[in-house]
């Protein structure tokens, strides 16, 4: 096996793993509110989201022209840097998942790439002004815009319908939620599924395995679509709990308002040229739907921790991506060491998560995601667990 083929294989595998973490990280964006209000049973919700993600991935196979949209100078990016950037993004995605923190997978990927390029090509490879205009500013605007819209919508619903969260009205809102949540899942599949296809295709082109200017190959579309779908189906229950239960106690009218707002914001931003992070839009909508309903219990402490997580995403992924690039840049042995480190790190994070696991069965039982059992507020246990 030649070195190029080895690097390309590593990048493809790592990109698919990133795609998987992207899926389970963002499962909550589409379905957390539907799961929390009981509009969909947890396993049905993630199955629906997964199927729509795969369909979305197949619908949109137009490869992005650049990996990063100008954040790093694509001319200096090597497959090794992409590999290191993906490693940084995966490790950060897993860490935030462990703490149940919703954070943007795109920002993690950009962060990892920025770190890898800084180490591999120096500061000239990174466009810092684009970081401000494409990441920092949208990160500030997304929760504000979504929060305002969802807050207004929720306020109106409760103004017109005083018994909005009681039957029979609540049932109608739950049915509406099925549609609004599905829209987010489909939109997510078309945007994020295509992102990994773009990374793999660009690597294949750089390495000379594919003609420049051609679209993704069929196996790339299939594997990338399946990776994000499997990730979505696996649920990311820790993040699902935070989004559905941790920020606001959500009733079905709020769920409908939050999901509709998120869908509208995602579609508006992808069609009007000002990209907003899906995760930050969805979290902002949920927060807004809590502020819009009088007497709703908004847990600002969790919201504050979530914002800290967003601020940390870029530098933390950059740090991990930079360290990976420094080691991987030394040659084939370095690549193997980084890959082994990725496997070991992922296994360790997974092992820690098993101490206080969150699954489809207990996602709605508590509001906090904890690392050690017994931390946080007391969790109501289901009878069979005690018995």
């Amino acid at each position, binding site marked *: 096996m030649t070195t190029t083929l080895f690097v390309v294989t590593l990048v493809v595998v790592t990109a698919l793993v990133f795609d998987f973490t992207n899926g389970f990280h963002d499962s909550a964006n589409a379905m957390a509110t539907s799961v929390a209000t009981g509009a969909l049973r947890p396993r049905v919700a993630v199955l629906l989201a997964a199927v729509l993600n795969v369909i*979305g991935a197949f*619908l*949109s196979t*137009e490869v992005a022209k650049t990996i990063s949209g100008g954040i790093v100078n694509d001319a200096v990016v090597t497959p090794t840097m992409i590999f290191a950037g993906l490693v940084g993004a995966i490790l950060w995605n897993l860490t935030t998942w462990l703490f149940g923190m919703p954070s943007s997978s795109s920002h993690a990927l950009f962060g990892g790439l920025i770190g890898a390029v800084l180490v591999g090509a120096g500061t000239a490879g990174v466009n810092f*002004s684009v970081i*401000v*205009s494409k990441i920092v*500013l949208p990160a500030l*605007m997304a929760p504000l*815009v*979504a929060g*305002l*819209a*969802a807050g*207004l*919508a*929720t306020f*109106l*619903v409760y103004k*017109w*319908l005083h*018994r*909005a969260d009681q039957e*029979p*009205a609540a049932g*109608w*809102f739950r049915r*509406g939620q099925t*549609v*609004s949540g599905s*829209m987010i899942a*489909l*939109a997510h599949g*078309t945007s994020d599924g295509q992102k990994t296809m773009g990374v793999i295709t660009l690597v294949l082109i750089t390495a000379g395995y594919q003609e420049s200017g051609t679209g993704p190959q069929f196996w790339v579309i299939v594997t990338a679509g399946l990776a994000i779908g499997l990730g979505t189906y696996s649920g990311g229950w820790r993040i699902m709990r935070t989004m559905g239960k941790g920020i606001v106690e959500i009733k079905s*009218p709020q769920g*409908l*308002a939050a999901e*509709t*707002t998120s*869908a*509208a*914001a995602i*579609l*508006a*931003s992808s*069609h*009007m*040229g*000002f990209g*907003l992070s899906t995760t930050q839009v969805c979290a902002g909508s949920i927060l807004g739907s809590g502020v819009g309903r009088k007497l709703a219990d908004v847990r600002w402490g969790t919201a504050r921790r979530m914002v800290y997580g967003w601020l940390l995403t870029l530098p933390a992924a950059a740090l991990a991506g930079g360290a990976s690039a420094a080691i991987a840049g030394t040659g084939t042995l370095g690549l193997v060491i980084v890959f082994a480190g990725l496997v070991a790190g992922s296994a360790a994070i997974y092992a820690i998560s098993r101490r206080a696991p969150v699954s489809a069965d207990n996602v709605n039982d508590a509001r906090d995601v904890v690392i050690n059992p017994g931390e946080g507020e007391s969790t109501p246990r289901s009878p069979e667990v005690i018995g």
Partner: protein
Amino acid sequence: MKIDWSSLALVAVTTVVAAVSIVGIFALGVAALTHAQTTTGAGRSAGLARVAGFACLGVAGLIALYGIYLIVPIFH
């Protein structure tokens, strides 16, 4: 540094207007349907409310279809 303030404003306004109108139409529909369901007897007012309610949900559904049209690239 170039920040595209006009498209940012456009996205913000579109999001707010779209979210409030879709949720508002849906809520009106639910209000009418709840009225039809809780009004005793199958009087004219209950029937009218039911028709109006489903009409509102239908409009919300059409907007959702337009959303799918926007999501799927092969449509445009």
